[in-house]
C-alpha cells in the first residue's frame, strides 16, 4: 500500500524530471529479468537498477531466485541480471557458470563482502584475548550451553550456505560445537535475544548487513583466507589440515545472461557502470531492516538523491 502511494506521488513529482529520458527508445521491449534473492542489500540494489532501467523505458521484471540456485536460470535465460554475486560463497560456481559461455561477469559493484565468526563486544570481558582466534581455545567455556558444555557453542549459518565451519573447528583445534541455524533470521533472532540479556554468543555474521550497525561487536581475527589454505594442508597454523584460516572475503559482482548483451546492449552498459559502496548500502539496509521502511521507498529516495550519479551510468542512453 505504502509502495503505491509513494510511487503515485513520486511519479507526479518526477514527471517533469523524466522528460529527458523519454527521448531514449530501448533496443527491445522484451522484459529484462532482474534476479531478486532473500537478503536486503540485494533487494535494494535490484530495486535501484529497476528504477534506472524502467526510467529509460525498459520493460523490467523481478524474478525471485535463490542465491545458489540461480545458475541454471541464468544459463537458460530465465534470469538476465543479478546485481550481487558474492565471492565469499559463489566464486567457484560463478567461474564454472561463466565457462559455459552462457553467463557474463559484469564487473564488481565496489561493495566488499566479509563474513566470519563474530561476537558482541561485551564478550571481550569474558574472553580476554579476543579478537585473536587463539583466545577461543582457552575460553570456550564462556560460550558453552548445557547441551554443548564443556565445549563452546558456535552458531553457524544455514547448512545450505556451506562455510566449512566443522573443518575450521577441527583444523584450528577449537573446543566448539558447530550448531547450524535454519535461516538468516534464525541467526539474528538468537543474536538479538542474547544481546538483550548480555548472554554469551558467537556466531556467523556477514557484511554488508545491518547487524554490525544494530549491535556492537566485532569479527574474530583468524589467519587470512588464501587459496592455499583450502587446498594445501601444510599451509597455516595446522600443518596437517586445510581450512585452518578464516572465511574468505572479497568482491561482490554483477552477472548477466550472455545473450542479453546482444538484446539490450545499453542496459548491460548501465549494469556494468553500476557502483555502490559498503557504507551507503549498510545505511540503506538499516533503513529497511531496522527502521522498517519499504525497499521501494528507500531505493526511490536514493535514486532521487543521486540522480546525477545514475544518469552518468546511462551515457549510452543520453544522446
Amino acid at each position, binding site marked *: 500500500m505504502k509502495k503505491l502511494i509513494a510511487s503515485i506521488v513520486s511519479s507526479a513529482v518526477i514527471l517533469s524530471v523524466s522528460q529527458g529520458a523519454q527521448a531514449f527508445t530501448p533496443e527491445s521491449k522484451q522484459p529484462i529479468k532482474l534476479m531478486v534473492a532473500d537478503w536486503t542489500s540485494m533487494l535494494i540494489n535490484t530495486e535501484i537498477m529497476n528504477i534506472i532501467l524502467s526510467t529509460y*523505458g525498459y520493460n523490467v521484471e523481478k524474478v525471485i531466485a535463490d*542465491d545458489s540456485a540461480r545458475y541454471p536460470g541464468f544459463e537458460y535465460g530465465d534470469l538476465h541480471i543479478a546485481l550481487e554475486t558474492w565471492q565469499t560463497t559463489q566464486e567457484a560456481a560463478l567461474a564454472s557458470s561463466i565457462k559455459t559461455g552462457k553467463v557474463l561477469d559484469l564487473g564488481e559493484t565496489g561493495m566488499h563482502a566479509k563474513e566470519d565468526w563474530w561476537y558482541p563486544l561485551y564478550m571481550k570481558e569474558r574472553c580476554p584475548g579476543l579478537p585473536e582466534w587463539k583466545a577461543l581455545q582457552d575460553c570456550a567455556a564462556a560460550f558453552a550451553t548445557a547441551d554443548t558444555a564443556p565445549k563452546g557453542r558456535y552458531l553457524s549459518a544455514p547448512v545450505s550456505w556451506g562455510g566449512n565451519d566443522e573443518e575450521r573447528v577441527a583444523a584450528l583445534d577449537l573446543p566448539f560445537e558447530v550448531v547450524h541455524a535454519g535461516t538468516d533470521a534464525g541467526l539474528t533472532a538468537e543474536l538479538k535475544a542474547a544481546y538483550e540479556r548480555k548472554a554469551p554468543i558467537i556466531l556467523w555474521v556477514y557484511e554488508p548487513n545491518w547487524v554490525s550497525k544494530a549491535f556492537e561487536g566485532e569479527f574474530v581475527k583468524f589467519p587470512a583466507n588464501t587459496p592455499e589454505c583450502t587446498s594445501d594442508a601444510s599451509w597455516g597454523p595446522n600443518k596437517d589440515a586445510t581450512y585452518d584460516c578464516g572465511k574468505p572475503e572479497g568482491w561482490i559482482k554483477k552477472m548477466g545472461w550472455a545473450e542479453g548483451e546482444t538484446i539490450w546492449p545499453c542496459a548491460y552498459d548501465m549494469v556494468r557502470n553500476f557502483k555502490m559502496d559498503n557504507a551507503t548500502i549498510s545505511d540503506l539496509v538499516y533503513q529497511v531492516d531496522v527502521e522498517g521502511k519499504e525497499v521501494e521507498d528507500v531505493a526511490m529516495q536514493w535514486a532521487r538523491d543521486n540522480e546525477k550519479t545514475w544518469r552518468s551510468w546511462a551515457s549510452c542512453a543520453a544522446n
Partner: protein
Amino acid sequence: MIKAMRFAMHTPWLVFVLLVLVLFAISSNSVSLFGTNLRSIPEFMILPLSDWAGNALNWFAREASIGSLTVQTITRNFAELVNWPITALNMLLADGIVTGAGFNKHQLMPPLSWLGLSSALVLYSYFLGGRRLAWLSAIGTAYLVFFGLWQHAMTTLASVIMCVIVAAGLGLFIGIASYRAEKVEIASRVVMNVMQTVPIFSYLVPTLLLFGYGPSAALLATVLYALPPMVHATVLALKSVPTEIREYGEIAGSTKRQLLWKVELPAALPMLTVGLNQVVMMSLNMVIIASMIGAGGLGYDVLRALRRLDIGGGLEAGMGIVVLAVILDRITQAAARRQSAGLNHEVRSPRPWLYLLIIFGATGASFLLPALQFWPEKMMLSTAPFWNESISFINQHFFDQMEALRNFSLLHIMNPFRDFLVELPFVLVLLTLGGIAYVLSGIRLAAIVMGMTAFIAVSGFWEAAMISVYLTACSVVIAVLIGFPFGVYIASSPRLLKPASLLLDTLQTLPTFIYLLPAVMLFRNGDFSALIAIACYAIAPAIRYTIHGLRSVPESRIEAAIMAGCTPTQVFRHVKIPSAYPTLLLGLNQTIMMALSMLVIAALVGTRDLGQEVYIALTRAETGNGIIAGLGIAAIALISDSLLKAWAAKKQHQLGVKP
C-alpha cells in the same frame, strides 16, 4: 492374570516379541546377517536414487519433446498463459492499472476500492449466513484495512482465487474421471496420497524448472498441494448421489454428459462445496511458501517482517492471512450448508447489479477521496511494538526458566531418544514394522510397509529419516498431552465450542514461520525450537478429533450408562473413551500427518532431518535430492498412516462403531 490374558489378546503379541528382539540386537553387537552388521545399512544397498531422479527430471525439463515441441516450450507457454489472469486479477484487486515503472510510473486506474469490496462482501455474507457472518466479514475486512494490510491481502486473495479455480477445475476433472473408471480411481488415489505427504518444497524445484520463476510457478505448486482434497471430495460426492436420482436422470433420457452436468454434479453440490472449502484452506496454508517463489502478498510481508525480527509485524501480517482464511472458510461453509439444508425460494441472492453498483460506486468515489483507495498510512493501527516488547520482556525475565526446561528436555529425553532411534538396526525396524502390519491387517499391508521402509534405507537417507521420526514422535507426544485434555474439556462445555473452533482455525492457518522466530529467541536454534513449532501446528487436529470423537458418542449409550449407575468419571472411562476410540486414533493419525508436514518448515530452525535435506536441496536446486528426501517423508507418513488406519479399522470392527 485374566487381565493380562485379555491384554495379550487385544494387543498383537508379535509386537512384543519383536520389541524384545530389538532390545536384544542393540545390546549385542555380534548379530550379523549375510556377513554384514545389522546395525548399519551396507554400502552396496544404497542406490543413487537421487541422481536418477535428478537426471530424469532435468532431461524431462530440458530435453524431452513431444513431436518438434520441447516439453519446456509447452510448459513455459502454459505458464505465460496462466500469468494473464493472475495479472488481471491483481490489477483489479490490488494494483490498479499502472504503466511504466521507476521514474515513469503512472497509475491509470486505481484498483477496486476497499470500501466497495468489503461492503459487497458484508452484503453477500448477510445473504448467506445472516447477521453473524456479516459481522465477521465486517470486522475481518476492517482489520485488513486499518492495519494497512488491504493491498497485500488482495494480492494474496488474487492468487488464492486463481489457485482455487484451477485446483477445483482440475480436481473436478480428475475426480470425474476417477468416478467413471475404477482403474483411474486407484491410480489417482495412490498419486494423491503421495502428493499430500511429499512436502511442497520437494516439488518447488521441478516446478521452477518447468514453469520458470514467478507467480505461475507459485500458483502451480500450490495447485498441486491443494488438489487432493478436491479430487477426494469429487469422487465421494458423486458416489453419494442417491442411486434413484441417477436412475431418474437416465429414465428422463439424459445423455451421458447431461447426466453428469445436469443431474449428478448439481445433486453432489453440497459435498463438492465442502471440497472447495478444503481447497481454499489448503491454498491459504501455502501462501507463505508460494511467496518464497514469487507470489508476493501477505506471505511476503510475513517473511520480510521476520527477516528484520519484527515479530509483531509478522504476526499482524500472519493474522491477515488468518482473517482471509476464516472469512473464506465461513463463507464457503455457509454456502455448503445452504446447499445441503435445501434451497429456499424466499431467500434469493441480491441482484448482481447491486454488488457492481456498490463496488464501482466506491471505486469511482475513490478518485475524489483517495482514502477510499488506500487507507492513509497516518491513520493505520499497529500492535507490532507491543508484541515485540512482550517477546523481549519474556526473553529478559524468564529466559533462565525456559533454558532450564529446554536443557532438561534435550539432555534427558530428546537426545537419548534420538540416539536410540538412530542406533536401531534397520533390519529390525523393517521386521518390526512388517510384523505390526501383518498382525493388524495382513500380508499385503506388511509387504507395502516393508517396501516403503526399504525404500528409505536404499535412498541413503536412513539417519535423517530416523531423526525425522524422533522429532515427529516427540512433537506428537506433546501435542497429544496438551491437546487431549484440552479437547476433553472443550467437549464437555458446549459454550466453548465456537471460540475453540476459531482458535483451532487460527492455529492451522497462522503461518508457522511466525512462531519459529520467538521460539528461536527463547529456545535457541535447534531441535527444541523445532519441536515447539511442530507441536503448535500439530495440536489442532489432536484437539479437533478429541472434541469430535467425544461429542459423537451416541446419547443413548451415555444415558444407559447413567441409568446403570455410573459416576461421570466411569461414564467417561467406560463409555465415552471406548466409543470414541477409533476417532481418537484417526485424530492421532492426523496429528502425525500434520507434524510430518511441518518438518520442512522446522528445518528453518536448524534441524538435521529429512526436512533439512529437502530444504537444502531446494536452496541448492538439487532436484533429485529434494524429491527423494521428500518421498522419504512421504514414506514415513504413509507407513504410519496405514498402520494407524488399520488399527482404527480393527477397533471399529470390534466396537461396531463408525468414526
